[in-house]
């Protein structure tokens, strides 16, 4: 079963948010989503400096089998993107909560987010 990390919060669209209450938050997609997508071969991220809005699309993730929209789980300004994952999107499959992080946002407002327990029970993940 796909792993769900207890310390993170999750959106209904399968993005995780690393919110420790200080500074920009890291955002990625959950192992549940990465496993469902299959081998990821392309990722389109928002640009640094752009504004993202919680619940709205901000990029795309493409696997060998399909294309999925990336939804912003928070509202704010993108302050950093992971260049490594753009050149090697397979990092999202191999390490979705680590080296496969996508971008960081200076948050003005959080979207609706779930706890790891809630997300795991809804989506069949393993804590």
């Amino acid at each position, binding site marked *: 079963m796909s792993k769900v990390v207890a310390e993170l919060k999750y959106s209904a669209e399968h993005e995780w948010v690393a919110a420790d209450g200080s500074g920009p938050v890291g955002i990625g997609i959950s192992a549940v989503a990465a496993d469902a997508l299959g081998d990821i071969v392309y990722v389109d991220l928002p640009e640094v400096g752009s504004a993202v809005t919680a619940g709205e699309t901000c990029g795309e993730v*493409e696997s060998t089998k399909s294309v999925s929209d990336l939804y912003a789980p928070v509202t704010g300004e993108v302050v950093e993107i992971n260049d490594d994952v753009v050149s090697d999107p397979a990092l999202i*499959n191999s390490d979705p909560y680590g080296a496969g992080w996508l971008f960081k946002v200076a948050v003005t407002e959080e979207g609706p987010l779930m706890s790891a327990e809630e997300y795991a029970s809804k989506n069949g993940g393993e804590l």
Partner: protein
Amino acid sequence: MTENYTALYEEHKKAGASFTDFGGWQMPLKYSSELAEHHAVRNAAGLFDLSHMGEVWVTGPDAAAFLDYALAGKLSAVAVGKAKYSLICQEDGGIIDDLISYRRGEEKYLVVPNAGNAVVVAAALAERAAGFDVKVEDVSAETSLIAVQGPNAESILLALVPGEQHPFVTELKYYAAVEVEINGQELLLARTGYTGEDGFEIYIPNEDAAGLWEALLEIGAGHGLIPAGLACRDSLRLEAGMPLYGNELSREGNPYAAGLGPVVSLAKESDFIGKAALSELKAAGTGSTTGRKLVGLKGLGRRAGRGHYPVLKEGNVIGEVTSGQPSPTLGYPVAMAYVDVEHAAPGTALDIDLRGKAEPFEVVALPFYKREK
């Protein structure tokens, strides 16, 4: 949609497969990574469960004459032991299915339709059999089909065949079949596939399928064999330029637009269902001077086209993608698409509308990938 399960369903669960519905069947999509499975088939070997495919026996004194009438190809010209790729068409030339027929005797053929069409094809054959001295028997429900595909397929299979029968396997030609003892059981073995690699397909009664599946996995492990799901089957057949019913082929399409003109035998003496309409389509230049034609598209960027995406020439829609994805073997996006014949020549620069963004592609000859002999 009816949920059907193959006799190997428990084997797939044991191997950690994720499943998908395909033609009403719960089939393994992938076991680990579809890319790893794809590369295993190209470089070593993959094991596929194809038990969702149909199997229909056609037997009797009129078997050959009947198939000449029911299908678009000339099945009477197939030698015993050989197989032929053919089409079953409607009166208007639309394609009901593409299928492989194995001639197993003077009066005996095994017809293999696609999973989603098996019931329809069996019914169409039974209906078309009126007036012919033949028996049409659908054995799909009790027959499993296991494929071993890849450059190591032959050595894996030989490990399960007694030494004195090895020549049956090593001398078996592409698109031919033979009865051979595999894992202690006499079975029908065909040298056919849907991957662009050398490989075999084995027909086996449901109750024996799991035993053979396990034996092949065990023997094959030392030859790089891994179980392979439908995800990589799709990427493998796309690279090999092989059409998929429902994507490239349909009742609304026709063989000439699909590049399958040579499969239609207008020259055979006897009449066949669809002949009049197909003769007209050919005379009109369908797929060559008029209408749309199936072509290969090679991506110049990194983004892949997907089924139903529009194909553009200078901003105007001139076609539609039928299948597309990044090619794991070639490293660039590939697609098949129907495009207006005037834009179908290899080398033509076209765009695929990727959700509002035009991405450059180039028309190339099919297949995208051909193995070295």
